C-alpha cells in the first residue's frame, strides 16, 4: 500500500480548516507551518534511511519522536489561537472603556 505524504498533509489541512471554521484565517499560517515542518522532517528521515545514515530501529524511533514534535506544533497553534482571541477581547474592552471615559 503506497503512502502519499503530500495528499495526507493536504487532507489534514482540510480537516483542520473544517474544525476551526470561522477562526481558520487566524490559525491557517501556524497550522500550515506545522504541517510543512512535519513534511520536511519526514522527508529528512526517509532520506537519512535511504542513505544508510540510520537503521530500521532508529527509523522507528525517529518516527515516534516526530509524533512528539508534531503534537508540540499543535500546542503552539492552540496557544496562538487563544492569544488571538485574547488580543481581540482586550481591544474590545479598551474601545468600551475609552468610550466610557470620554462620556464621563
Amino acid at each position, binding site marked *: 500500500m503506497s503512502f502519499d505524504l503530500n495528499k495526507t498533509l493536504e487532507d489534514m489541512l482540510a480537516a483542520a480548516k473544517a474544525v476551526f471554521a470561522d477562526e481558520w484565517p487566524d490559525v491557517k499560517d*501556524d497550522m500550515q507551518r*506545522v504541517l510543512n*515542518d512535519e513534511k520536511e*522532517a519526514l522527508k*529528512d*528521515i526517509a532520506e*537519512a534511511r535511504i*542513505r544508510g*545514515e*540510520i537503521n530500521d530501529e*532508529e527509523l522507528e524511533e*525517529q518516527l515516534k*519522536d*516526530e509524533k*512528539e*514534535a508534531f*503534537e*508540540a*506544533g499543535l*500546542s*503552539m497553534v*492552540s*496557544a*496562538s489561537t*487563544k*492569544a*488571538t*482571541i*485574547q*488580543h481581540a*477581547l*482586550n481591544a*474590545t*474592552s479598551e474601545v*468600551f*472603556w475609552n468610550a*466610557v471615559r470620554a462620556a464621563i
Partner: protein
Amino acid sequence: MKAPSPRLNAYYKFHIVIIAIAIFLAQGCSFRFIAAYDEKTEEAIFDASKLVDQFYGKLLDTAEDEREYSKFSEQYVLIESELKTLVFRNKVRSLNEDSTDICERILKLWRKYKEKHKSKDTYSTGTAKLDRNRFSRMFSYAARAEGAKKPNN
C-alpha cells in the same frame, strides 16, 4: 414607606442594567483565555535553544567513534536542569497549558536521548542531525507560543 413610582422604578432598573453591563465588561478586561506574555520565559526559551544547539555542534564536531557519553555528561546535566526550569517557569503560570506541554515534550526527548547515549555510549551522526533539527523546531514552537501572547502581536 411609600413604594417608588413606576417611572422611578424604571429609572433604577435602567441604571442597574447599565452598572451590570459595565461590571461584566470590566471583568471582560481581566478575563483571560491564556497567560500573559512573559519576557523572561521567552528569553529562557532562546537560551535553552542555544545551549542545545551548541551541544549538537560540539557532538557533531567530535569524530563518531569518540562520542563516549562521559565526554558529554556534564552538558547533558546542565541542559536538563535548564529545561526543567523552563518547564517549571511555564507550569506555575495559570492558563499556560499549551506552552507547558511544548516544554515538557522537549524535556522528555532530551532525557530520552541522554539515556540512549548513555546506554549505547555513542551517538550516530545521522540520528544527531535529525534530533538537532527536531529540537530546533520544537524550540521555535515554544518561542512562537510565548511570542503570540505579546500585546499587539
